[in-house]
């Protein structure tokens, strides 16, 4: 194994730009090495650090398995993909960008359902009328299960949705959804409304360290240098 610290950062979009900006403000210049489309990079002047540009959802897996020592990604993705997140990673710093709430949203038309308790109340009737539990479309399967269980709602089925989740109720493939929203505009446009107590997680991008990575002395020292630059 290399002695270097592996830092995993988002490989595209606003999240990548804001991550690079955030490090730049701390005097750390992230740049790609070799091919512009490649995914390897470095921090100028810190040769004990290797940077991997990968998709935000893969970063959680890198941290969970210890392939990366540090990473930048959304708390929502960490909580969804790592069932024992607090055992495996440390949230070092919320970064003030990549804001997104994970929420439970029902059709606005359900004027009799404004809380999770009221959702639970209609479960039994729904089943009697339609011969099935109501369906929740989401890509946040684990997050949904945990939240619904904590709220005492158990009579539902999850339908895994990998895109355009907010369209599922109108399309008839699900009855309600759990999804991320930043302004709520997309939900409203799809005739959906967030339940009064339906905000599961207020997520933003975080700087995160893996507890299960191989923390060689070299990696530890590189971490210190990054932390110092960030004023942590």
């Amino acid at each position, binding site marked *: 194994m290399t002695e270097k610290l592996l830092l995993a950062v988002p490989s595209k979009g606003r999240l990548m730009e804001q991550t690079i900006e955030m490090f730049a403000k701390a005097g750390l210049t992230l740049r790609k090495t070799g091919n512009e489309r490649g995914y390897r990079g470095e921090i100028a002047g810190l040769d004990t650090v290797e940077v991997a540009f990968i998709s935000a959802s893969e970063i959680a897996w890198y941290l969970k398995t210890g392939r990366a020592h540090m990473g930048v990604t959304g708390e929502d993705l960490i909580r969804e993909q790592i069932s024992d997140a607090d055992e495996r990673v440390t949230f070092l710093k919320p970064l003030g960008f990549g804001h997104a709430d994970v929420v439970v949203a029902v059709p606005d038309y359900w004027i009799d359902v*404004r809380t999770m308790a009221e959702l639970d109340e209609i479960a039994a009737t729904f089943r009697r009328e339609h011969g099935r539990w109501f369906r929740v479309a989401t890509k946040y399967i684990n997050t949904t299960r945990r939240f619904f269980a904590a709220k005492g709602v158990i009579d539902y*089925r999850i339908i895994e949705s990998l895109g355009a989740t907010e369209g599922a*109720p109108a399309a*008839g493939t699900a009855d309600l959804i759990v999804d991320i929203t930043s302004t709520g505009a997309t939900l409203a446009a799809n005739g959906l409304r967030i339940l*009064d107590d339906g905000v599961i997680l207020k997520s933003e991008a975080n700087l995160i360290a893996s507890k299960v990575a191989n923390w060689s002395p070299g990696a530890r020292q590189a971490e210190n240098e990054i932390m110092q630059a960030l004023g942590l």
Partner: protein
Amino acid sequence: MAAETARKFEALEAQAQKIMQVFIKAGHEAVSPAILQPAGVFLDVIGESLRARTYVFTDPDGDELCLRPDLTVPTCRLHIERNGDAPAKARYCYNGTAFRFQPVGAGSAHPREFRQSGIENIGFPERERTDAQTVATIIDAMRAAGLKNFKLRIGDLGLFRALIKAIDMPDRWRQMLTHLFWRPHAFRAELQRLSRPAEESLKSIPPDLRAAIAPTDLARSERAVVDYLSSNGIEAMGTRSVTEVASNLMWRLADAKSDPLPPETVALIERYLAISGPAKAAGACFKDLLRDRGSAMSPVIDAYHRRLQLMTEMGVDVVHAEFSAEFGRQLEYYTGFVFEIVAPELGRESPLAGGGRYDDLMRTVGGKRDVPAVGGAIHTERLLSVVQGGAA
């Protein structure tokens, strides 16, 4: 968990043989239901805690399947496959693998692949007798495998159902409390809610809508809902009908008009749920507690004592058995008597065996009617580790 050693494999096989011999001698037919099961059937009946721990996947045809998390539901499906809806009695036994996801660090008493040896008694109307036979047979089998030191824990969901039935309250509240029984937290919250004036629970309904709903007139209430939707520019969508939305609002208004549950009723339910201790003493306890609830309770209390008596006659040590009114709250498909065998070495968190009565299950998994049924299963890896006196 790593693969098991050949020695452990052989020990489990030998143990399974001893167990199955007892089951077969007690009149059970050995069956081997399918490991791959349709996910939908399972997900609907097993309850959320087990649901989140079931391995579910989609096959190349797009069908959702799961690795069976227990053998009771597969055995019921096998029974229906064989008999259709013809009334049939059957005693089954099995020894097979079940699969449950375990969080990291769950320990060796909680493997994600484990073998269950168990029995199911389907279609026998003498409930207490069959309950007692089930416990006695499971204990005999565990003894045959070498178990000496253990404790029997029992519960009875029938008592709770009868109690709720004997208390005067709107039917919908009964349904709600029974529905929430499995979730102690939500149950307590609902009980508190029903004991307060219900005005509060109506606050979330917009006042103009609330005024327009007619508590006893469905057609008018539906019109009120439609008017409210159109004047607020809301489109109807999805599966729920306007009738469902209107009926739900009507129920809630009706609830608000009912008298709240009096404090002594809430106290009675809470006192019942707090009962735990030696099985015989507990029996006396709820006789005391429920005496003034009149005759409605006596059949279930009599059944409780008759079951204890039958167990004694069948050689089960009832004197040291422990009753808990809360016991059974984790196991959603049970409807009546429930039991667990625990060993001091592994404690309550890792019972060596468990089971109970599930009179609704046959209908849930595809039968046309409820069928009296009771069963139990042994967690064979745990039993072996206790019998061998070492770590699993």
